[in-house]
């Protein structure tokens, strides 16, 4: 969607017609940088994925999926979105142009979160109900391995160099490091209670793991698998047990981490090098997962209890807009 700026003459014409306010707004919308990313939000209770255009911030489509869609990942070529369908024990494949489910893949029981390697060949799935990580070949859905980990696996992150995968298990309170060449667990790192999300830093040197009940984030060295730092959060006026770290994303330059704090209804902004908390941003209720716009300027956070998505400006750290989505929004991904 390309648009040309309005010429000054045209603006003067409109101004003479006393349409100033409306037209200036319209003009500023039309001259805004156009990159038209597509935002996908999974709605756990509605069995749908909401599709939002990043420029208009309008819902363009609601795609029906199987029962209980949660974790999602985009393929490296952005052509497909892979969605965990928890209650139907499968992955739905959404074509990101057609905006419809075009196929399914096996996932093992109760898939919750999923990641894919950088070549787009292998898919790693956390089977929450079954204490396993299922690894499958994307081309034909062949299951390459079912790796036993701890109780209630959830977080799933493939390292940027594809060499390891980190899975977290909620009841076991560990991050399990899987060697992607042997598909075996090579280390187990104990973290605080109920780890949810694992996220590699942009440079791949560390992996951050959020512990929902523990209220902390562990920073684990991706080479030695040693916990180098563990930090928590303190928000005046918010009871500590409500601060439950969940989704983690890094800014495009990798210098800042954004961490959704669930029942605290806030996003923490953390210095990725010093781990110092820089500020908190208000969101809707129970912000769960989040995603960065591919141009790095906006963050999209989905709020489970208020059924909306908060748009946050990365430069000013201000929430700008809230967009209604489906019921119990869970995950969010953005296609450039």
């Amino acid at each position, binding site marked *: 969607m390309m648009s040309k700026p309005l010429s000054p003459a045209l603006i003067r014409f409109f101004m003479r017609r006393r349409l100033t306010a409306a037209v200036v707004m319209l003009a500023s919308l039309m001259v805004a940088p156009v990159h038209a990313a597509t935002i996908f939000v999974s709605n756990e209770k509605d069995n749908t994925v909401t599709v939002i255009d990043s420029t208009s911030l309008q819902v363009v489509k609601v795609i029906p999926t199987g029962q209980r869609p949660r974790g999602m990942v985009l393929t490296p070529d952005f052509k497909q979105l892979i969605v965990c369908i928890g209650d139907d024990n499968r992955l739905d494949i959404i074509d990101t142009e057609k905006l419809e489910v075009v196929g399914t893949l096996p996932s093992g029981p109760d898939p919750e979160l999923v990641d894919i390697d950088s070549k787009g060949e292998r898919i790693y799935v956390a089977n*929450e*109900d079954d204490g396993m990580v299922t690894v499958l070949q994307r081309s034909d859905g062949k299951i390459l391995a079912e790796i036993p980990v*701890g109780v209630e696996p959830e977080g799933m992150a493939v390292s940027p160099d594809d060499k390891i995968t980190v899975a977290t298990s909620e*009841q*076991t309170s560990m991050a399990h490091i899987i060697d992607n060449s042997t598909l075996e667990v090579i*280390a*187990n790192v*104990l973290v605080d209670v109920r780890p949810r999300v694992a996220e590699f830093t942009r440079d791949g040197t560390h992996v951050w793991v959020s512990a929902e009940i523990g209220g902390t984030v562990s920073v684990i060295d991706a080479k030695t*698998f040693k916990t180098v730092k563990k930090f928590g959060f303190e928000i005046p006026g918010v009871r500590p047990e409500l601060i439950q770290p969940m989704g983690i994303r890094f800014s495009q330059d990798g210098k800042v981490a954004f961490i959704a704090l669930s029942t605290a209804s806030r996003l923490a902004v953390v210095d990725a090098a010093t781990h110092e908390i820089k500020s908190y941003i208000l969101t809707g209720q129970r912000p769960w997962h989040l995603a960065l716009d591919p141009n790095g300027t906006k963050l999209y956070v989905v709020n489970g209890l208020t059924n909306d998505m908060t748009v946050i400006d990365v430069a000013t750290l201000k929430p700008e807009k809230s967009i209604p989505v489906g019921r119990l929004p869970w995950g969010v991904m953005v296609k450039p």
Partner: protein
Amino acid sequence: MSAVMCLTALAGWHCSGAFAAGPVNPAADAPAAPVGEGVKSNNELAAPDVPPAVEAHLLYLGKQYPDPPPLSLLDKVLTDDGVQGARVALKENNMTGRLIGQHHTLEEVRLPADQDIVAKAKSLLASGRRFIIADLEADDLLAVSDLPEAADAIILNARLSDDELRQENCRANVFHLSPSWAMRADALAQYMVWKKWRKWLLISGQGKKDVQYAAAIKRAATKFGNKIVEEKLYAYTAGSRRTDSGHQQIQTQMPLLTQTSTSYDVVFVADPEETFGDYLLYRTYEPRPVVGSHGLTAVGWHRSFEQYAGTQMQNRFERAANRTMTERDYYAWLAVRVFGEAVLRTASNDPAVLKRYMLSKEFEIAGFKGQGMTFRDWDQQLRQPILLSGPRALVSISPQDGFLHQKFQTDTLGVDRPETKCRMNK
């Protein structure tokens, strides 16, 4: 597999200590399992990936008391209530344990009603058992906890709500996982305040537990500024739950029972001993909701509850036990998980080390309630949110918003530090 341990040790956790200082000697704590009547050893996961450096031997101590059958025919009469939860949690402890060189065993001792559980407990304690999941009635629980052999044991009460056990009769070696009657009554009372259902008709049975719950309801009424407009006793004993024309008598009896001179907003029923509670629904003199032991209930677990990953627990349990998870199953599950968490974080099977950890700020246990749960140091009761559930669906979870506390909002439920009558010698 030692590479695994090494890497884990590098992560800076206690397992390195367990190795460096030499493995804890399991032999000292683990005599040959005594095998007798009602004794079953559960060692099905005895093949860990890493040789265990820490072994913990848990003992499930129960007795098949003549429990009243549930009034509703939809609730099955169970013979394995509680212990099934412990079995599921044992598997979880060992799934985690095999990754870190720890192993748990669960010895199930569940005696028939006519046998002496205290004598049995004494011999098991003498042979080294220290970690007990107690599915016992109050007299037996107190007798076991007062055995000299139990002085340094950790006994987790997974059955009883008796307030007295958290008050005058508290014991330093007993921790309470089940919520007290006071916590349950407070959880409902807060919701009544939120609903502005402030006038209660209290009807209680005459069993021991009925009287205990009724006392807690009266306390909750005062604590949260509600009013009990009238108090009635249902003085009949329970008959057979199966009769061919039973509803006719009940239909005439219940309106009479609930007829009062002053109007009320709700009927608060205290009948945990299952004599008449379910009969009140839809039969009250005034058209009013029923809350308490029946109708809207305050519980730690319910099949209708699936939030905070509760779905996974419900599914896991049903696969293992071929039935739904009861509240007692849940607390037995939680008891085994408390031992699992304490052993995991301390890498020790020393009861003194575990007890210190369980009472420390570092300890918290996850149990699908959306927050870490901890023990109150004044009576060793587990702080926890309480589910308010109707017969078929979850209604709310207490504490309700707006009930404030300077430390833990969950301490608005039950007996808080300033009011405790518990004086234990630690």
